[in-house]
């Protein structure tokens, strides 16, 4: 340990290599709430420094845990077995925005929100906007293939990346994809995006930017039954409308939001927040059709934001959901299942049934427009055995309906056991083989993303 510490200090200087307990504690956690102490934390500022750190880690057989802002919800940035946290936040330069080509060349420690601010004067934005966009780094977004409310219309992060600079486990720097469209060769970029730091460390990326919409229309509809709200979702799709956002809060969540934020006074069994964007003339027609659809499906209260302030107020209710649940209990288990959109109603019914079966209250928030649900369960340590069963059963139900155990949060450590539910051994064998090619010594984020194959932290059945 002393040896690698000295070598890293020679490389980066004393200030950018930390091993005091206070510093290690600051990087022992992520948004899951679990804690595992790293041995070291380093702060490289260039791709070459990241590569040098990886070469040293490999020489010393030390695990490497890449980290952005630490906002991930699946344990992907936890140093399970100690090791070296490579904190990328100092790789924070926006190197170039090309408004003609609608691309941005960024370092991966840039915060998503900072890129949004830099792109806006050009009339552009970066479409992926996870809820944590104000603090989450683009590198984290890419490593997790982050989602957000806008995926139904704009797609996931992978759809907005042209190329990345990736440092492999042996310190080799490769360019996957490119700075222009249609790089030749296999789509290794597609493998890297969403690989949760297990195939390499992304240090720079060329991102595709999108023209800002000319206008928005934001609506809220409250229903007296959850099935009616979900039927309205199907009705909106059937009306040939792809909203930019179509968010659902169930009754439990609405009640938690009301308790923590009395200004939000919506009461009902389910709430839909619907936002469409585009040209104003098209939007007015879409709003009329949506209004007709939601009322036909029993919406009691329908509100259209008449100003930016009203739009923000409607979004505040949605954005308050997770913080409100955190006030219900110190520990909250956030699930991330995704089902085909025509299976949302059976999935919601199954969640309700399983909630009753296991005796744990479930609060559900959903990106209904893309089938991504977040059943969220406040719990105490005593609840843990029941929570594990509920978690297992909800994952199994979603897979039985043709879905995925994770739509945007990633596998991390939380969902390793579910990978065997979603995939057969054939697919998992392929994933292990891919990992073996990129990182034969398994030093990159060990114990995450893909179970088995000699994974020392794999406790999956």
């Amino acid at each position: 340990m002393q040896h690698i510490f000295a070598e890293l200090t020679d490389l980066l200087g004393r200030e950018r290599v930390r091993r005091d307990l206070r510093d290690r504690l600051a990087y022992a956690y992520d948004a899951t709430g679990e804690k595992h102490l790293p041995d070291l934390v380093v702060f490289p500022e260039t791709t070459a420094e990241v590569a040098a750190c990886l070469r040293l880690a490999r020489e010393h057989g030390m695990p490497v845990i890449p980290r952005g802002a630490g906002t991930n919800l699946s344990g992907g940035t936890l140093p399970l077995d100690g090791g070296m946290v490579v904190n990328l936040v100092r790789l924070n330069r926006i190197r170039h925005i090309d408004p003609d080509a609608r691309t941005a060349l960024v370092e991966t420690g840039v915060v998503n929100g900072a890129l949004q601010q830099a792109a806006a004067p050009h009339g552009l934005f970066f479409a992926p906007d996870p809820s944590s966009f104000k603090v989450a780094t683009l590198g984290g977004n890419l490593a997790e293939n982050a989602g957000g409310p806008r995926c139904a219309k704009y797609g996931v992060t992978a759809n907005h990346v042209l190329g990345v600079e990736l440092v492999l486990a042996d310190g080799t720097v490769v360019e996957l994809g490119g700075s222009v469209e249609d790089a030749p060769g296999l789509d290794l970029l597609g493998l890297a995006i969403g690989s949760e730091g297990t195939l390499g460390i992304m240090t720079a990326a060329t991102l595709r930017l999108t023209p800002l919409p000319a206008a928005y229309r934001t609506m809220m509809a409250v229903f007296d039954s959850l099935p009616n709200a979900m039927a309205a979702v199907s009705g909106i799709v059937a009306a040939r409308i792809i909203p930019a956002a179509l968010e659902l809060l169930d009754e439990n969540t609405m009640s938690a939001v009301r308790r923590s934020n009395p200004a939000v006074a919506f009461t009902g069994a389910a709430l839909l927040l619907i936002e469409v964007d585009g040209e104003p003339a098209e939007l007015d027609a879409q709003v009329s059709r949506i209004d007709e659809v939601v009322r036909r499906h029993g919406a009691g209260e329908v509100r259209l934001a008449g100003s930016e302030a009203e739009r923000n107020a409607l979004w505040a209710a949605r954005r308050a959901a997770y913080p409100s649940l955190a006030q219900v209990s110190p520990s909250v288990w956030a699930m991330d299942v995704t089902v085909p959109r025509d299976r949302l109603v059976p999935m919601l019914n199954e969640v309700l049934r399983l909630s009753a079966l296991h005796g744990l209250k479930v609060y559900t928030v959903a990106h209904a427009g893309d089938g991504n649900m977040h059943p969220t369960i406040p719990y105490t340590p005593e609840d843990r055995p029941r929570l594990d069963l509920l978690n297992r059963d909800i994952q199994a139900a979603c897979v039985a309906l043709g879905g995925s155990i994770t739509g945007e949060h990633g596998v991390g450590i939380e969902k390793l056991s579910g990978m065997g539910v979603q995939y057969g051994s054939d697919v998992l064998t392929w994933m292990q083989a891919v990992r073996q090619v990129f990182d034969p010594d398994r030093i990159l984020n060990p114990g995450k993303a893909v179970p088995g194959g000699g994974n020392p932290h794999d406790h999956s059945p």
Partner: protein
Amino acid sequence: MIIRPDSPAAAAAALAGTDGPVCIRGAGTRTAWQPLPAPGPGLVVETTRLTGPGDLRPDNLSASFLAGTPLSDVHAQLQAAGLWFPVAHCDAPEATLGGCLAAGFESPLRFGYGPPRDWVLGLEVATPQGLIRFGADVIKNVAGYDLVKLHLGAWGRFGLITRATLRLLPLPEASHTFSQTFTGPDPLQVAGAAETAVRAALAAGARPAALELIGQPDHLRLLVATGTGNEDDWQAYSHQRAAMTARYPWRLKLSLPAPGVAAALGLLDRALSGLDWAVAGHAGSGIFTAWWDDPAGPAPALNRLQAQAQAVSADRWFVVAEGAAARAMTGQPGWVSFPPRPPRSQDRLEAALRAALAPGNFANPHLPSPTPEARS
């Protein structure tokens, strides 16, 4: 021996336990690019009987089709249900869905809707180990690595795509194609006028689905499509591209920062000066295809183009010589890409993945690696 399986199970049976060499193909519309069947007792597995009605899920905006279904048939089935796969193609109408996906085909609609890889949710693939299902019928799936994308553009090297699940949109209610023609004796002036028109279309706040350029250096036509574009116009566009492919022996693809119309045509004009040539381009995305004739072969023009692209655009460019041009350069079908930078580490990763996931390099072994160095 040629086998034409009529079900995914039959395709898997044909490949069971094989260590190759197997030539995997769809309707054979890109034989100039495809590997040739290996000499001797090699097997050819063709997907043209893997057809049938798709499994449509309108409320999920998705559908699954067997891989041998012609892409034109996929579009027809979806259109009848008010659905749309926002991926057009410029190949022969009999080109199969699986073949298009395996070949990493281009879509003129990519400016408005992104490349085809953004619209594939899942694949079923026949391998020597059996049928494997990758992905899921959902838009958001981050469970493990995205192995669907590994098969797209891989030319069947990891197995035979037997079924694809596609992400869809509602069929647009209104679609139009506008065209504008630019002519003149000076190719650079023609290119400049076309670029001005492209920039004007973008600056006006329009959100076209496609911005396509096609013609000769002294006569270019710009197609601006909204919605799906006009079907007749797309057919005429496809025919014009097919005519260029039939007429000229050599073909290349050039990528530059978008829109790059003047830059691309300037580079091509200098590299192909004095030769007979034609061009088509996804002008909104900076991707151009050029066809040309040169009795001296493709190498002189490709070498000139590389040198000038590097001078004009630093590292922000790719050139890929395709089909016969690649064959003339390397003695192999397929493609050859530039810049031939120092052996790219990606080549090493590609070779290792093929060794790990396609044991014995069983499928389409005659496909070249993407850069000359990797082959040497």
